[in-house]
């Protein structure tokens, strides 16, 4: 018995020691080429569902295999899992070779060292940095550092509106300022109490951030200062968040139920004719999958406080999009770069972005007539003239969580009839800022 106890103790101690010393995980500094014939690719879910993505990507991967002899194993990862999967892969060092990331994560993942830096030499291997739209490259990592990823699909926010509901309420053209938007929303709700002006996704933290960011720009507020410290409680930031939540609390053009939406229910409401307007990124394919005809809806630039969209306080969208990155622990670094080159080639950019309803971040591909449809023209113009990247700081993911949650709480207040005041907004943002510990 005593011997067995001793044996058990030895086992435990050995295991603990192994665990303590084996903490290193994947610590080799960069990839090698020990497995040159295969690649694993984690694609983000861009189409209406995962099967649709597989259908779109599989023939292209076969094409790549024919060209290079490299077999690509595809896994389409849902958005709800993607970041956690990347974190797990980063920690263990055991991940894909090539992966898609949301472009807002670029700086956070860059700080973790998980991704291959795209220095001039690496960019040359895929045809050079100049092939890409500047604003898209701007959202692929912190300023002054080599980008951690390469832009793959670009998106921007637009104002989508229901033409029939506008006509019914006697509105002849989409609003260009927030005042006009509020007035139009009130008209629609006044005509039929079951219909509402604008939709929102109150429970979706990222979406809250995207809207608050664009409004923040219009109020002259960045959520971080030059040194990367959070400035969530600046007057501009408070005013921006308040303006957004006030669409429900004060202006009453958003239905209270939207406060708990987090699964794109606002798009369903839009398709059913319950809401007249939504602010969304490249919504065309989603509307089609909800049974809307392209003639049912129109797209216009997201409103600004006054004047026309542009730079500075006339920014009306974040630079949204998906970047493609090479995992630092890859066993096929040359193959991975070849694959990135393939995915960002002019022909593939046209095909992929056409399939997903997004805009190619590659300049040459944008010239394709497929991207001149009126709604895509709006997105293209926005990206070119009036979009700004979200703060490219390491703490970006924390920002999304803390401020996104604060706004979610304010929506709950607005929906429950609690007053939303400058003080209550400031208090919520103060609490969010205090939780940023890094």
């Amino acid at each position, binding site marked *: *018995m005593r011997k*067995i106890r001793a044996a*058990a103790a030895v*086992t*435990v101690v050995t*295991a*603990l020691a192994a*665990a*303590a*010393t*084996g*903490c*290193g*995980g*994947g*610590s080799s500094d960069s990839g090698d080429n020990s497995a040159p014939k295969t690649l694993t690719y984690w694609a983000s879910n861009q189409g209406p569902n995962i099967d649709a993505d597989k259908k779109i990507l599989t023939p292209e991967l076969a094409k790549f295999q024919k060209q290079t002899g490299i077999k690509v194993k595809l896994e389409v990862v849902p958005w709800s899992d993607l970041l*956690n999967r990347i*974190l797990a892969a*980063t*920690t263990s*060092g055991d991940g894909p070779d090539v992966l898609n990331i949301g472009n807002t994560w670029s700086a*956070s993942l860059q*700080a*973790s*060292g*998980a991704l291959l830096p795209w220095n001039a030499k690496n960019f040359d291997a895929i045809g050079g940095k100049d092939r890409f739209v500047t604003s898209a490259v701007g959202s692929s990592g912190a300023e002054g550092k080599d980008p951690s990823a390469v832009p793959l699909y670009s998106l921007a926010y637009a104002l989508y509106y229901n033409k029939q509901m506008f006509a019914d309420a006697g509105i002849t053209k989409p609003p260009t300022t927030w005042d006009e938007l509020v007035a139009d929303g009130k008209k629609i709700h006044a005509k039929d109490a079951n219909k509402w002006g604008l939709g929102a996704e*109150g*429970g979706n*933290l990222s979406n809250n951030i995207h809207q608050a960011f664009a409004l923040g720009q219009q109020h002259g507020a960045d959520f971080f200062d030059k040194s990367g410290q959070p400035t969530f409680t600046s007057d501009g930031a408070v005013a921006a968040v308040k303006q957004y939540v006030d669409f429900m609390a004060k202006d009453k053009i958003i*239905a*209270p*139920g939207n*406060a*708990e939406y*987090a699964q794109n229910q606002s798009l369903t409401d839009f398709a059913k004719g319950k809401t007249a307007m939504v602010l969304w990124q490249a919504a065309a394919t989603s509307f089609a999958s909800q049974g809307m005809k392209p003639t049912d809806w129109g797209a216009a630039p997201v409103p600004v406080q006054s004047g026309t969209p542009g730079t500075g306080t006339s920014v009306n969208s974040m630079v949204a999009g998906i970047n493609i990155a090479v995992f*630092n622990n890859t066993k096929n670094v040359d193959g991975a770069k070849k694959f990135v080159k393939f995915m960002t080639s002019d022909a593939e950019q046209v095909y992929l972005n056409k399939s997903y309803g997004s805009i190619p971040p590659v300049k040459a591909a944008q010239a394709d007539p497929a991207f001149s449809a009126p709604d895509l023209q709006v997105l293209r113009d926005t990206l070119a003239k009036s979009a700004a990247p979200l703060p490219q700081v*390491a703490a970006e*993911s*924390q920002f999304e*969580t*803390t401020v*996104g*949650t604060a706004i*979610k*709480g304010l*929506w*709950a*207040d607005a*929906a*429950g009839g609690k007053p939303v005041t400058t003080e209550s907004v400031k208090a919520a943002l103060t*609490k969010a800022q*205090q*939780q940023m*510990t*890094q």
Partner: protein
Amino acid sequence: MTATVTPPSAQAGSKETSGSGGARRRLPRIPDRIRRGGLPYLLLLPAILLELLIHLIPMAVGIVVSFRKLTLFFIRNWGQAPWSGFDNYKVAVDFDAPIGQALLHSFWVTCAFTILSVGLCWLFGTVAAIMLQETFRGRGLLRAIFLIPYALPAYAAIITWAFMFQHDNGLVNHVLHDQLGLTDKPSFWLIGNNSFIALVVVSVWKGWPFAFLIIMAGLQNIPRDLYEAASIDGAGMWQQIRKITLPSLRPVNQVLVLVLFLWTFNDFNTPFVLFGKSAPEAADLISIHIYQSSFVTWNFGSGSAMSVLLLLFLLVVTAIYLLLTSRGRKSADV
């Protein structure tokens, strides 16, 4: 107890010696003593190894991580994360600062939630088990129906509840507001203060069948004669429950309440599926709070420190509980 155990083991021993003479010749080096005594340990070995691998090692790693500053800058090479001593703990228990305050708030919410949920689970389980003690037509069917919530996969069940609690199209508002007219306007259940009620409802719905099952099993062990004797003595149903059923169920209840407490206090599925990554303040259970403090904000050192504190708290509560109840049992035995 010993009297009943000795004969089978003696039997087994004699069988072994008589039947395995050949085996002993083939394996001469293993002494008899170990061969006989070692078998149980050999059988236990896979379980012990898996227990180590799945529970104890991760727990130990978690404790190590809680003393490090493991943020996103170090997740790729987390052996190199700097040691931070008790810093993560200091931040977690500094109740004047926002992070500590939020943790404390979450702790109180979890306590209230656990007391309510465990209490109601136990109450419903006991009442239902006693009611179904008598044989009547359809008893088997009722028992089966009562156990359904326990048999359903947690995720599917909770997501259904999330749909029912929706503000606009949910069943709960449809019944309470549209049909019964109990509220002035449709209520929010998944955001704001009502979210606590929603959480308790789902937790009790999910948890009480387990209490029911265990108490039902416990009731089978109470001899019928006791009830017959009591009723001859003129004891009514309520007195029978109080004087016979509940005292007889005591050992069962002790384990049941402890298990329910541990499960409920740690419950992650229910708030995560109901509310997503960030629970409303009124329903901010500690497990989801810790998840947010580590996975969502990538601060694994801080999350681990909070987890270790939670582990310590649960250990202390469990130890006190076991101490109190075993003392009670001993005095009852005397």
